[in-house]
């Protein structure tokens, strides 16, 4: 109930601000609502949403596929981590946006550089979460694993990985959030579809700020839905122990 009230107050504030300031450029909530309806009528919206989600799925999926094993290995072999970590720490703070020119050199214009940027953005948080997750596995679990005759690789697979999984999931959740931020930015530059492209295209072709804001709100709503989706993983029985409300 209360969240709805918050949204209602915000919408009212927005609506009356537009009326009071008499702006001709910035759309009111009603204009935006009409904008969404128009996008739906023209059947471009679903395609744009689909394109954005596909890019995130590819980039984030690849980051998970590479990042989790790399992170587990770095966490498992501290000696390797000592060599690799400085490089990671230098690369990590570079905004994926700064990679755009490089991505275009590597992959040209189109789908590939966008997916690459999402991959980069999601890769680092996943690796960092896995390294941290492995490092914080209680020694007692590893010892128990060895005691039952497991080889080091099996200790990693059957003890360290499940013990670190809650922390890894937190990393995946952060990575997915970042991936969604980056897909929009990437689509503003490298491709001609998707929600990011919709924002830029609506502004460039006739200053349709009603469509700009409509696309922005959709980006927010879908981002929320993605986050809620990945949070459902935290409710799985085999990881619930690792989250505060899970006991």
């Amino acid at each position, binding site marked *: 109930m209360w969240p709805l009230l918050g949204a209602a107050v915000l919408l009212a504030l927005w609506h009356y601000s537009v009326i009071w300031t008499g702006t001709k450029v910035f759309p009111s909530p009603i204009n935006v609502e009409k904008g969404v309806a128009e996008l739906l009528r023209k059947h471009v919206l679903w395609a744009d949403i689909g394109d954005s989600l596909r890019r995130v799925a590819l980039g984030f999926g690849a980051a998970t596929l590479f990042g989790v094993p790399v992170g587990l290995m770095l966490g498992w072999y501290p000696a390797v981590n000592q060599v690799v970590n400085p490089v990671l720490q230098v690369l990590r703070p570079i905004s994926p946006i700064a990679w755009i020119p490089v991505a275009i050199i590597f992959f040209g214009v189109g789908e590939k550089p966008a997916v690459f940027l999402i991959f980069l953005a999601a890769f680092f948080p996943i690796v960092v979460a896995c390294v941290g997750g492995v490092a914080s596995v209680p020694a007692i679990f590893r010892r128990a694993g060895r005691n039952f005759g497991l080889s080091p690789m099996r200790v990693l697979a059957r*003890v360290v990985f499940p013990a670190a999984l809650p922390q890894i999931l937190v990393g995946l959740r952060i990575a997915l959030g970042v991936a969604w931020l980056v897909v929009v930015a990437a689509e503003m530059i490298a491709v001609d579809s998707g929600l990011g492209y919709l924002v830029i295209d609506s502004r460039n072709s006739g200053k349709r700020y009603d469509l700009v804001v409509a696309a922005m709100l959709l980006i927010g709503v879908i981002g929320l839905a993605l986050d809620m989706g990945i949070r459902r993983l935290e409710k799985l029985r085999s990881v619930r122990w690792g989250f505060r409300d899970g006991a």
Partner: protein
Amino acid sequence: MVFERDGKRIPVLEDINLEVTDGEFICVVGPSGCGKSTLLNLMGGFLSPTSGSVTIAGEVVKGPDPRRILVFQERGVFPWLTVEGNIGFGLSRLSRVEREERIAHYVKLVRLEGFEHSYPSDLSGGMKQRLQVARALAVDPDILFLDEPFGALDSVTRLIMRSELLRIWQAERRTILFVTHDIDEAVQLADRVVVLSSRPAKIQDILQIDIAHPRNISSSRYLELRDDLLNKIGVAFTL
């Protein structure tokens, strides 16, 4: 056994000679920090002795082995596995049928029927420790090392757990080495109590507990042995 910490050599155990017979229940007591756990870790193969060796059935211990399982004080069970998953953890080499039989047997032995599919977070402290013992016994070890297994439990649960452990030990005879700081626990459970001195620990005394199970803990012989043990540890038993 000598530890090196910050460049300093800290002798922890010195001149420990102990022979344990098959099926014996040994309790190790001593002042806190004296090296009781170090001794278990040496025997379990988790540490290598600076000098000397540990020999089990004529074979020098070189590392951890499923034939001797260490049971920890708490948080030793795997929280991501169910009761069944925990008990079956060391049984991946068995066939499915055998594994399920083994799991069912130990679920019953430690009285966790009805909790087969529960996760450790849904179990009480005592149940978790019973689960840890079941997981250890399931791989059919020759020796169990228990490192203050009931130390984190409340006193009533601890009493219940002692009789449970005795029941399990009598049902499935294994050699047990049990570290505790609880004098009563030692006299109630052990065939022999090994008293360690403070660090660097030596074996100060070995006390034979010549009372048959079930032990009457208010019998005069029990009280005599208990007082004897308190004396040896050097604690006054009048407060």
